[in-house]
């Protein structure tokens, strides 16, 4: 599974490169608009090891941001289930927070948190958390009547139990969504680095764009793709293992 994701990514990347070269040919664009393969290769040789370190740095932050986002989304989705006024308010706040493009909120974050790891983490988590929240709200809001009936009837239903039942019944969906959102954690971190400009592959990307160096951009995108695929593959493995643990092996299903 792990190498599969990687080689699939490489195929797609190469296809995209091919597409760019084709556009270049068709429109007779010069090397400074779309770099030539030789140019790309030289650039790759020059910056690869440095960008590798940057990408690793970014990955580390993305992982922590992802965890943060999962916690945040879970908490908000659970609180948002409350039917009282506070719950509604929190839900509205959560939705509205998302409505603000990070580009508008980032300056405020940088002023309040400085330009260290904290801002990077927060932005990564913010970008990643909302899609999680959406799915979580969808899952946590739908009753599993056949299981919940007993607990409701006997007055045993607590919100913790309700959440547990719904999460467990939808574990496959939860795992898919959580693993899939890894991509967004990467994006979030890169965007934070892009704007906060302190470290990581997002920072390198910013400089490459500032210098109008598409070859560097393409190398950076390659590394981002590889690391995202790796992280995704890892999470999917964990997901498979987890589901194996949750749902005991059965002899087929009916």
């Amino acid at each position, binding site marked *: 599974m792990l190498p599969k994701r990687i080689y699939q990514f490489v195929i797609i990347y190469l296809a995209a490169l091919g597409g760019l070269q084709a556009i270049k040919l068709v429109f007779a664009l010069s090397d400074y608009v779309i770099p030539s393969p030789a140019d790309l290769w030289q650039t790759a040789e020059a910056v690869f090891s440095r960008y590798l370190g940057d990408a690793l740095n970014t990955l580390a932050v993305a992982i922590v941001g992802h965890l943060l986002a999962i916690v945040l989304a879970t908490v908000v989705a659970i609180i948002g289930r409350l039917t009282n006024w506070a719950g509604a308010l929190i839900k509205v706040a959560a939705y509205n927070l998302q409505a603000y493009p990070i580009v508008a909120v980032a300056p405020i974050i940088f002023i309040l948190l400085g330009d260290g790891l904290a801002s990077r983490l927060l932005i990564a988590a913010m970008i990643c958390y909302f899609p999680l929240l959406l799915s979580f709200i969808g899952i946590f809001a739908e009753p599993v009547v*056949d*299981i919940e009936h*007993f607990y409701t*009837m*006997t007055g045993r239903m607590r919100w913790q139990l309700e959440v*547990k039942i719904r999460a*467990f019944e939808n574990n496959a969906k939860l795992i898919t969504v959580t693993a899939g959102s890894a991509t967004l954690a990467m994006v979030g971190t890169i965007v934070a680095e892009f704007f906060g400009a302190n470290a990581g592959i997002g920072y390198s990307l910013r400089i490459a764009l500032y210098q109008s160096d598409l070859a560097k951009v393409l190398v950076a995108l390659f590394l981002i793709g590889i690391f995202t695929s790796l992280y995704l593959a890892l999470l999917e493995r964990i997901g498979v293992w987890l589901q194996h643990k949750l*749902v*005991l092996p059965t002899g087929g299903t009916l």
Partner: protein
Amino acid sequence: MLIDCRNIRYRYPNAEAAVFADLSFCLRGPGFHALFGPSGVGKTTLARMIAGNGPRYEGRIETPGVARTLYSYNLERLPGWSCVGDHIAKVTPPSRRERMADLIGSFGLEGCIDARFSQLSLGQKNRANLTRYLVQDFDLLIMDESLANVDETTREKILLKIKGMFPDKGFLYISHNVSEVAKFCREVVVLRNTAKQPQAVSIAGLDLAPDQPLDKSRLERAMLEIVHAA
């Protein structure tokens, strides 16, 4: 008095015909009673109304002396994160632990307590679900086809066990097995379609107790009466 239904009228929204048109009946005293009738006549609907989580209806249902009604049905599931035994133990008050073990034994569930609910056969699921209701506080327990997928031998054992264990509680047992309701129930409320009046008739069953010999001819008479009424 256990259940007193007066002039119940109800039609499902969008449905053409009413389920209940002036339904009245009453069930007296504790004991093992049945709600019987052809498929689709309204047993589940009525049971839910009695338990207080059915749709809004016209008329009155009163359950004097019944502080706590529980409604169980055959499609219920136990959560999947731990084994069946743990789930049942978790909802059993400490004082009823012994009773729980007794029930698991007599219901033939010993082999199932370490399994997840999804790994049980249908009949095992029925029994596991019923067990957890029987260790709750209740005055009236409605069993809506709660044993539908259990074999007859086991089912008889279970019914006798329940009757022996809870002589003072009220039960409303919904089943499609005529001989069973005739044999074990005190009163059998037969629900009939709205064309017939009255919509419900009460027929006395044999109310067989554990170790009590079976009077076959009485049973046959009761069965006939029930079938005729339905």
